[in-house]
């Protein structure tokens, strides 16, 4: 059996999203397309974003990388749909604080929802860049940036 730290990192939800990533497809009619690439570990994704005014109409992604980066992109794609730009930015901060261990105690599990599965990442500082790659890329797409995003 794996150690407790490992179990907390590789939670079922993460393994599941790694194996069967959601919204894992090209989006030909996307409004914004942005690449996220960490050359050192080889995590490489393209995030597709479609907006309806200020609201995220659809998000999808393609690419390859480690389980943490892929599951993070997949879970992210399921939680940001239908959210306003402002709300996505809030979720970004929430996620970032969670994986870097700065997560405030008063944030409820309910608010975190599926993102809570990534709490274990904070015990593995070198993996924070994997978990946050998709989120940084999505934020770049929302901000209409063009240059490839990296978290290394």
């Amino acid at each position, binding site marked *: *059996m*794996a*150690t407790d*730290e*490992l179990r907390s*990192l*590789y939670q079922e939800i993460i*393994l599941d999203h790694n194996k069967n990533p959601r919204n894992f497809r090209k989006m030909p009619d996307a409004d914004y397309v942005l690449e996220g690439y960490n*050359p*050192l*570990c*080889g*995590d*490489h994704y393209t995030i597709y974003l479609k907006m309806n005014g200020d609201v995220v109409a659809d998000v999808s992604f393609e690419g*390859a*990388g*480690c*389980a*943490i980066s892929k599951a993070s992109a997949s879970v992210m794609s399921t939680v940001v749909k239908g959210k306003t730009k402002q709300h996505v930015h809030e979720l970004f901060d929430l996620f970032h604080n969670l994986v870097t261990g700065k997560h405030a105690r008063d944030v409820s599990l309910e608010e975190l929802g599926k993102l809570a599965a990534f709490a274990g990442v904070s015990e*593995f500082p*070198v*993996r924070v860049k*994997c978990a946050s790659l998709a989120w940084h890329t999505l934020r770049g797409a929302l901000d209409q940036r063009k240059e490839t995003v990296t978290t290394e």
Partner: protein
Amino acid sequence: MAVTAAIGTSRLARAFDVDAVRSEFPIFATRVRGKRLVYLDNAATTQKPRAVIDALRRYYEEENANIHRGVHYLSERATDLYEKTREQVRRFIGAGDTREIVFVRGATEGINLVAATFGGANVRAGDEVLITAMEHHSNIVPWQMLCEQVGAKLRVAPINDAGELLVDELSNLLNARTKLLAITHVSNALGSVNPMKDVVSIAHSAGVPVVVDGAQAVPHLRINVRELDCDFYTFSSHKMYGPTGIGVLYGKLDLLNTMPPYQGGGDMIKSVTFEKTIFNDVPYKFEAGTPNIADGIAFGAALEYLSSLDWPMVTFYEQELLQYATEQVKEIEGVRIVGTARDKAGVLSFVMEGVHPHDIGTILDQEGIAVRTGHHCAQPVMQRFGIPATVRASFGIYNTKEEVDVLVRGLHRVKEVFN
């Protein structure tokens, strides 16, 4: 196979006392995450024997002074010790003259030195520099920079699916415009050993000088630069059980003499006026500024330690270990070895179906196993094999079959997690 392995082991156990070797390396007393350290990242850097650590401490406690200029006791002593390392290096690599031994920070600086000086003086617009498809970034980028600067062309000799250099193709790429061949002796990502003597001879018959990146070779093979007949050979102390921050560029004396200096400053001059500077003789011409005295002296302790070992036995032991590791890891379902050259040294690179190397590295780390995951500063090699990264287990003189078994158990654990 098991019977052969067992016989091989008992023969080895008599001939090569790995426990004695391990006892010279204090780091193995360290526990990692509550586990015994299994250090399989030797291609990145090796651990240091007590003699090296003692030499460092002794230098700062008893011998510290600047070298080559003081008239006082300590300066003379430090100078003697530092220059003694130069002589040890000369002997260790079979060079003919200590003036051919230039101290640098490491193999990367050695290559940059050749690119800036020999390259700067000899490579012109329209010329070509030839490298191979298995080079570390440090034997690609300096040449790319040089070629861009002068308008020359960088050409690349291909490798096959096993990770072996295609020597005939390399031969075909040599032409009248080729000014230099820069090639690794042993690939850091694949472990392939290049037939260096043949390659040098082929290049020379086309009139092309050869610079060899020996960083991954010197820890595993006893090399002789005069036998190889290479023009330059460079390596790093820290990959051969010595300290970081010091390395060697060997160059043939007549070539070094014709090359312009690398950096300007103290120690590389004979006299300076505002009108003219007279440069020092080789190798000091290439050693501007106060060098890394402490690590240079401790490097001497590493060479002394290595010279005390029975090298045919070391090579035999390491080959057996690599073969054992290859057989054991290959047995694991879904594992593919990357780099299956007939002649290999020290490196076992692999990928596992459905699991990214980075995840494997994290899980192995929980077991106290240190491996490298990623592109190993050889992105073109990864592209050649169509993969973003590999797991690399790399071996040294102190590794054991038991540690290989721990690695294999760790890999089964990876499969458990990812079932």
